[in-house]
């Protein structure tokens, strides 16, 4: 067996140009397949770790998934806000243990800005019921204090005491700036691997303050309220985007959901994070399946190319196979020789694919994290990916049977003298 391995390797090396091109195809297809699987897995992982301990998310009436997306993942924009009074009513409900108000809509250099209050740092949980921790500094106290998520501080190079300017809207570039009212960084959070890392946290009062002299999404012309005077105004927000609610007892969650739905003041919606997530998976699941199917087809195309190249080489190798027969090779040896060749290319393609993917995730991972909030964990390979690889190798083995069997037939027919 060992000598067949060496023979197969030498023979393949002899045809390295054609086989090399095939190897490129197999490698890229494996990279694509594993890449799709990795992003799928990490996106799910990231989403389900982003919120924990919150029983209900309440916002203005919209779809369950949408409310979840902007309240927790900062994806998309709220079309409607809910009134401050609704929040106060909710908070005073005897079933409610805590309620954290959220106000979105501004950004800082592409990172979303979240207006909230100090209870956010007490009650927000992520992952396996983990609380937020401070890497440096403390929660905001003054109106113009800001607490940065780990990625924001890291990628923009901020430290405590730095001044930052918020931008109106979530667009990032091109938005109007609240340049007259800069904020001071007073805290930097420890990394969580959730959208919190990409968020700039300020107080609700700050959100009101920077919009005092604004109307309809633009500063009022010829009218400006200097930063030092904002305290003279009532900074209680008129409306907010959403509320995270913790209940005293989880048993009451459906009762509470109905209470919110029936709230008389305005149309509101309460979603259970878990239920909204599984709705989200249903939507995304179809896309995932489609992507995986395309990636699988690409692998099939790669392996078909491999079979074609090996088959095409057989005719010019009939002399070689006849020589091997004359020195004692059995037709089975010839069969194994061809199988080994296909297996080599598939295995090598898998190894290179894994390496390429590792390289790619190291290079574009941080970008994907910032841009899409999907933390691609740097790793060589996960058990799920290993299963996919095993399937690819199995498929490579199966497709190698085709040239293997053809060579077997040829060497039986040719014997010692190939009929060319």
């Amino acid at each position, binding site marked *: 067996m060992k*000598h067949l391995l060496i*023979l197969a390797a*030498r*023979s393949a*090396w*002899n045809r390295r140009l054609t086989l090399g091109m095939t190897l490129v195809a197999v490698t890229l297809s494996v990279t694509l397949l594993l890449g799709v699987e990795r992003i799928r897995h990490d996106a799910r992982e990231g989403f389900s770790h982003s919120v924990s301990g919150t029983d209900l998310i309440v916002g203005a009436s919209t779809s369950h998934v949408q409310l979840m997306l902007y309240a927790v993942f900062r994806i998309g924009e709220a079309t409607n806000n809910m009134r401050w009074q609704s929040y106060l009513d909710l908070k005073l409900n005897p079933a409610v243990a805590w309620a954290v108000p959220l106000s979105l809509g501004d950004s800082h250099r592409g990172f979303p800005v979240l207006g909230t209050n100090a209870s956010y740092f007490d009650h927000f949980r992520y992952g396996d019921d983990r609380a937020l921790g401070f890497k440096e500094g403390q929660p905001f106290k003054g109106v113009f204090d800001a607490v940065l998520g780990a990625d924001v501080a890291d990628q923009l190079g901020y430290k405590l005491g730095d001044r930052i300017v918020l931008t109106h809207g979530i667009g990032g570039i091109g938005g109007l700036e609240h340049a007259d009212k800069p904020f001071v960084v007073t805290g930097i959070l420890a990394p969580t691997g959730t959208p919190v890392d990409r968020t700039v946290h300020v107080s609700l009062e700050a959100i009101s303050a920077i919009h005092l002299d604004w109307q309809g999404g633009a500063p009022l012309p010829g009218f400006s309220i200097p930063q030092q005077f904002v305290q003279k105004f009532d900074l209680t927000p008129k409306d907010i985007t959403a509320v995270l609610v913790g209940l005293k007892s989880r048993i009451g969650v459906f009762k509470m959901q109905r209470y919110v739905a029936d709230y008389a003041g305005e149309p509101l919606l309460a979603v259970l994070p878990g239920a909204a997530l599984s709705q989200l998976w249903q939507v995304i699941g179809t896309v995932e399946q489609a992507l995986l199917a395309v990636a699988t087809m690409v692998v099939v195309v790669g392996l078909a190319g491999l079979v074609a190249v090996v088959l095409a080489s057989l005719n010019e190798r009939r*002399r*070689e196979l006849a*020589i*091997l*027969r*004359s*020195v*004692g*090779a*059995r*037709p*089975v*040896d010839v069969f194994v020789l061809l199988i080994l060749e296909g297996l080599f290319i598939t295995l090598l393609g898998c190894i290179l694919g894994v390496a390429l993917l590792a390289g790619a995730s190291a290079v574009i991972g941080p970008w994907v994290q910032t841009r899409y909030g999907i933390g691609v964990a740097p790793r060589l390979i996960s058990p799920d990916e290993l299963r996919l690889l095993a399937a690819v190798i199995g498929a490579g083995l199966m497709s190698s049977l085709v040239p293997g069997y053809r060579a077997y037939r040829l060497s039986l027919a040719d*014997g*010692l*003298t190939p009929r060319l």
Partner: protein
Amino acid sequence: MSDPVIRIENLSFQWSAGLAPCLDIPHFEVQAGERIFLYGPSGSGKSTLLGLFGGVLLPQRGSLRLLGVELPQCSASERDRFRAGHVGFLFQQFNLIPYLSVLDNVLLPCRFSSRRRQRAIDSGRSLHDEALRLLDHLDIDTSLHHREATQLSVGQQQRVAAARALIGRPEIVIADEPTSALDADRQIAFLDLMMHESDAAGSTLVFVSHDRRLATAFDREIALPAINHAAVLEAAA
């Protein structure tokens, strides 16, 4: 004396059931140590006979014994093992695996047959040294040993192929037109080397050729058309 090395009785072979037989040999024997010149013009069923000796073809009828082993009664893998262990082959041209070095080409039979490997090191040398000895005897310079086979001249390639056919001292060496690609004086030189080494290995040499001028160097000359009674078709060549 012991059994003949090759013994054929009433053998007949046809490529498929409808066709006329292309080999019909009532009797043919080769004794141990003999050097046989088998004259076979094209179309005389030469390749078919070699296929039978190699155990890759089976006669429809009759007996074919090599070293006392009735080949038609062996399984396919037994015949493969027999060929690997007892028969060295040498063909007209392109005998070598192009992507292996000269040395690896010579050692090939020892990779497929443990018997050939064992007999090669019985001399007390290592396998490697035995290959070197043979290559040296066949006038292949040491500097060529690690070259790829395709970088050698045709004459050098044939001598390397001869070393490969002889390594591990197979009882039978079958050479099919090994000199036809060489020019006349090189033919004689090659034949001398070949005979000398096959004698040294104790092998029985069956040399097949359509060129009768070479026959004088052999113990016995047999014309294939004389022993083959089949009306041979050209296509069988």
